[in-house]
């Protein structure tokens, strides 16, 4: 069975600081990887995704993530956060053929102005 582990439960940063959220997955096959974001009071939205190709993917709002197959990792990064990045971030994985989307527990990011 597939599983996703997110390293941090709650991260607190100041504006302009850099952000990196860890994500490791367990799956016995080819995967598709995602980061979703949930802003306060809003629904889950896709931040970025990796299916194949360049392991460094760029998403919306300046976020990027790097797929490292040997480490089963898909860490999310942003070089300079803004107050509006305060949200909950979820890493998710599907098998490339089954589309069963499994989520990590999420990381709450609080950015202080």
């Amino acid at each position, binding site marked *: 069975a597939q599983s*996703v582990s*997110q390293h941090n439960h709650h991260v607190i940063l100041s504006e302009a600081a850099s952000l990196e959220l860890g994500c490791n997955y367990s799956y016995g096959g080819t995967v*598709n990887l*995602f980061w*979703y974001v949930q802003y306060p009071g*809003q*629904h*889950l*939205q*896709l931040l970025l*995704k990796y*299916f194949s190709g360049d392991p460094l993917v760029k998403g919306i709002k300046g976020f990027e993530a790097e797929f490292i197959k040997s480490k089963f990792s898909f860490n999310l990064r942003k070089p300079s956060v803004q107050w509006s990045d305060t949200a909950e971030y*979820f890493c998710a994985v*599907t098998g*490339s053929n*089954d*589309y*069963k*989307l*499994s*989520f*990590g*527990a*999420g990381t709450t990011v609080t950015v202080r102005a």
Partner: protein
Amino acid sequence: EAGVAQSPRYKIIEKRQSVAFWCNPISGHATLYWYQQILGQGPKLLIQFQNNGVVDDSQLPKDRFSAERLKGVDSTLKIQPAKLEDSAVYLCASGGQGAAEAFFGQGTRLTVV
């Protein structure tokens, strides 16, 4: 493009009562998911439909939960009877045929007292 619609947004019921949630996916999306998100945790997949057939319901507590997707469009999720531990946000998501990306609705927040 209209998003995934869910209703109601909020529901409070007493334990042992029954409750139903409704989801209208994005038009043309073949895949429909129901997730349960308990406070502080990531979404947990309850059931996945492909058109009107069940693809995965391995984590659905079938003694009390049921779901259907008549005509491969709208879906309802029912809990009967509800327990205190069912208090959670119930998320519906949909995805296009062969696409791994899922689009989420706002969710229904259920409180069982």
